[in-house]
């Protein structure tokens, strides 16, 4: 019975962890929109704007990756660890 609760908890937790994917999606979409309007205003700085935007997006992605790795750990590593402790 306890192992059922443990496994269910891990699965539900993994699903909740991936809600963190909303943040970078909204933030990076907004950043790309700003980059596009900057290119529209000044077409010759397209290379600079693009590379700076990609850099900023990769850093903003961090919290989404935190959630993703937590979800991965909960699915693959946590059941073995918690069931071993039971």
């Amino acid at each position: 019975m306890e192992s059922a609760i443990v496994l269910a908890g891990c699965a539900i937790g993994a699903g909740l962890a991936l809600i963190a994917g909303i943040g970078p999606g909204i933030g990076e979409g907004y950043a790309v929109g700003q980059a596009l309007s900057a290119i529209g205003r000044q077409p010759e700085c397209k290379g600079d704007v693009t590379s700076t935007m990609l850099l900023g997006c990769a850093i903003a992605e961090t919290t989404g990756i935190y959630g993703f790795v937590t979800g991965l750990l909960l699915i693959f590593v946590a059941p073995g660890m918690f069931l071993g402790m039971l």
Partner: protein
Amino acid sequence: MNISVQGAPIYFTIPIFGGIPISATLVVTWLIMAIVTGLCLWLTHDMKVSNVSKRQAVAEFLVETARNFTVGNMGEKFAYFTPFVAALFTLSLLSNLISLVGLYSPTADLSTEAAWAVLVFALITYHKIKANGFGGYLKGFTQPIPVLTPFNILSEIATPISMACRHFGNILSGTVINALIYGALALASHALFGLLPGLLGDVLSQIPFLDVGLPAITSIYFDWFSGAMQAFIFCMLTTMYIANAAEAD
């Protein structure tokens, strides 16, 4: 389909000091160190002042790029950081890309990134103390308002943790997604070719034909782009944090 996500496989354990595990991380890192050393020796032997060979031109280009990057981010007085930043970038890039040849990527193990982050944290703290003195360093935590001290300490500790986890998370998720794609395509291939009758179906269904092609396309993003990007971001954050720490408040 059985996918297992675990840490680095441990090859054997040296039985001193209560057992030092020799894991795949260590072995592949030794291999990468040998590759980088061999590359440096090959690029820089037999150099001339004029009438340079193409090999020397490539070496000069690499050194100039590293120096421009370091000096551009940190200012002229930190030009001596160039070897450190270039070594960090090369190690990180090669560690991320070595999974393309089938070896276990050492950056998929948090120990590697944690070690680099500890180095960077030590450098940041050293430069802060050098710029402000030890009393000034402690006082800097109470800086805008004394109430904010716990938050300042927390953000100080969060710096190396987030640097390590960002790099680790990106690379680990790339390896896991690649494993899942390979596994799923092998399963699909097994089901598809199992429909052929008799012995032909039995033999052909064991060979994962569908594994050719599609994983290469996804690995362009997960291995090449993400690996290079994370190496570049790690080095850029290193230079910016150290430059920030060294300017006296």
